[in-house]
């Protein structure tokens, strides 16, 4: 199968995915009883006619399928509709939070990935060291602890010991700080949430990377390279790394959607001004179009992420480019 052929195949497969995921979400949202405007119904100062006027405005009085068609028509014009609560275009709301979320998740992913690959390789090289056992313990603990719980513990520790901010993204007096002070301020606010987010990813990837690298280490070509007196670090970071990293790259693409949606809980507990807060409120209040807009964005990122990981794989592993499989 040529890469080009596979590329077009992927494109074709993406279309039903992009249509079906929103339909599913739309349907699930309608399984919940009532709609956004029900909260007005129990307000003694608002008449039924007013609530009905709102419902009519957004076609909420029509059958689900008709509503879905209205929504698709809008989407075809790249119009994500308006949020009921914010009364603003959905796209504006998503974009205004996206940056903050990506800063948090991007930072967490980055350190987790780099450390996981690096330490995973080292641990595979020295499997009997204390260093390996220590990391094993950390990874085990991190994987078994729910991250909201870790988050609360860290916040309480920070409150008791001081030194780190207890939430938010910037200090109250951020504007009064110097340029370097501002960077430090944001970094210090990143510390707790990004540690909580990153440690889980790190633990998972670290164990994966180590297992992969150990397996590669046992292959004949490593022995061959050693016989050629290639230095150990070069074997490790060049040859073993490139052979062991493929599954991680596939995962990288699949984690792209998590870049925008994976941090909700941590965002809420630390008051990080990202998408998580908005989406939780939107789902709870049944702010339909806002939820749908987010869904479209996440599914688009999923498709895009898979593309990107395929492309990355081709770059990293020449065997895929040539279409030849098997061990080298």
């Amino acid at each position, binding site marked *: 199968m040529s890469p080009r052929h596979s590329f077009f195949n992927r494109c074709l497969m993406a279309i039903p995915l992009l249509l079906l995921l929103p339909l599913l979400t739309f349907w699930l949202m309608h399984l919940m009883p009532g709609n956004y405007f029900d*909260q007005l119904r*129990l307000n*003694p*100062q608002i*008449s039924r006619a007013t609530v009905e006027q709102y419902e009519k405005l957004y076609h909420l009085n029509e059958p689900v399928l008709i509503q879905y068609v209205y929504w698709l028509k809008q989407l075809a014009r790249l119009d994500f509709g308006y949020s009921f609560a914010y009364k603003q275009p959905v796209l504006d709301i998503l974009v205004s*939070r996206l940056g903050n979320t990506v800063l948090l998740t991007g930072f967490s992913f980055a350190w987790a990935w780099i450390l996981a690959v690096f330490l995973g390789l080292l641990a595979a090289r020295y499997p009997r060291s204390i260093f390996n056992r220590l990391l094993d313990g950390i990874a085990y603990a991190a994987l078994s602890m729910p991250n909201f719980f870790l988050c609360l513990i860290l916040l309480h520790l920070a*409150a008791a010991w001081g030194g780190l901010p207890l939430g938010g993204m910037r200090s*109250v007096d951020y504007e009064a700080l110097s340029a370097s002070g501002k960077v430090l301020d944001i970094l210090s606010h990143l510390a707790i949430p990004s540690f909580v987010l990153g440690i889980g990813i790190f633990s998972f990837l670290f164990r994966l990377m180590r297992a992969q690298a150990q397996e590669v280490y046992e292959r004949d070509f490593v022995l061959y390279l050693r016989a050629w007196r290639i230095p150990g670090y070069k074997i490790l970071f060049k040859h073993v790394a490139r052979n062991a990293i493929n599954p991680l790259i596939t995962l990288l693409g699949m984690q792209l959607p998590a870049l925008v949606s994976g941090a909700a809980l941590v965002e809420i507990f630390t*008051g990080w001004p990202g998408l998580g807060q908005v989406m939780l409120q939107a789902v709870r209040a049944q702010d339909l179009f806002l939820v749908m807009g987010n869904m479209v964005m996440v599914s688009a990122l999923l498709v895009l992420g898979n593309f990107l990981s395929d492309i990355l794989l081709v770059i990293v592993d020449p065997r895929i480019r040539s279409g030849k499989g098997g061990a080298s």
Partner: protein
Amino acid sequence: MCAPIASFAAQSDFFDGTLVLPIATEPKTFNVLVAQETSSTEVAQYLFEGLTEFNPKTGAVLPDLAASWHHSPDGLVWTFRLRKGVRWSDGSPFTAQDVAFTFEQVIFNPAIPNGARDIFTIQGKPVTLNVLDDDTVEFHLPAPFAPFLFSLTQPIIPKHILEKAVHDGTFSSAWGLGEDPARIVGTGPFRLAKVLPGERVELVRNPYYWRMGHDRRPLPRLDRIILMIIPSQENQLLRFLDGETDLFVMRGSDYPVLKPLEKERNFKIHRTGASLGSSFVALNQQAKEPWKKKWFQNRDFRRALSHGLDRASMADIVFNRFAVKQCSPLSPSVPFFYNDETPCYDHDPGTAKMILTEVVGFQDKDKDGILEDEEGHPLEIVLMTNTEDPARLQLAQMIREDWRRIGIRVHLQPLEFNALVSKLTVTHDWDAVVMGLTGSVDPHFGANVWLSSGNLHFWNPGGGNATYIETKVDDLFGKAAVTLDRNKRKEYYDEWQRIEGEELPLIPTVLPEVLYAVRDRFAPLTPTALGGPFYPIEEVETKRS
């Protein structure tokens, strides 16, 4: 929790003249006319003003943008003289045209759905207005309307900024979070300086604010209010203790944690009394099963159930003692209109059981501890409540136990809020519900609940089945709405509260107290449950240390 070695929140000059408030959810819009949730209206109180102002301590309606007013003897024509020299926060003069714009082009604009229109629609007809000159407006009412002055606390919005949006049909989405703060213009003590979505909203003092202090110094005293968006209550507490924020709205359960820290962390706890609103159990007087309908329509049955409730334990367990027993449909915090002689029901399971067996006619024939009615139907009730509020869920559990003791089997059914609303107002498929309703300081705005034809009269809906007593309530509300004499109105509403206390269509439970922990660098502070911790905000200043 150990004492902090170093607090991250630095105490610098920056905080002089700055009030930092936490809010759980961010404001969704600054468009106060279309805003629906408290997160948005909370911010609006700093930015906008109405013709009149409500004093939460005395319950009096005071002049605000209107300096004075008078009305015709029949109460149909009200003339307001506007305050001279008032400017919008962008410096433009405030005139009668702005008042006319707010009412004629926005509130009564059929294309703009808004809640204010319902308030100013009296007996189905809109209030109209005439601009006599730049400083005088005249309102024409279709019928006398007693809460009219109070209703005029309705914020006035600037014509010169928003008229274009009305003409373009984009008014409802105008003044969103992404709007340039300089274009969000009000006459309130503060104006919008900056919005960081999901993070914070910064307000600075409005340099054009008209009000002067008693010492002729300009108001407001504070330079800046920063509203920090902190969704988790847990996190709000930590950041308050750390000194980052100046206010923490407490739950009763926080009291034992916070009280010992008052001195060390420089704050003071203020108990301000019962919250506004109501908390009750309602019984469906139009229940689907005919025998249940018969039970629930029986006043003695409802009285027995009220005697069965152990409200003291509810206050103790659910709110850590920080709650008051509710008797009247109004909260005791409602100034002036609250009737403290409304009949109350003590916890008395003996009397409750006696009423059920001897007055209503229930008996426990099969000796299973559950009473049966004359036709043999066991006394079983499905009690619903919404899942979102843990306190309410806990109340419902206690009610189940209380009623179990007087021979009633209660099945608890927690539902999502929207599902509950649809059962109450659309399908009418329910037995009993633990609920709360938001209150207003003028009882008239409960009319939707209490009038037999009101669309929130959910325990006996439709108006067609109104009982004799209910028509009496309709009559009292009708009279009170058109009576301008405040004392006379109070008599009507006292009578109404007495009737509801006797009839118990809604069986009141307990109302939580409002507790504020406030950093002690602000003065003067006179917190009330109605006016919040900082009313009047323009007088509050930071103490120089």
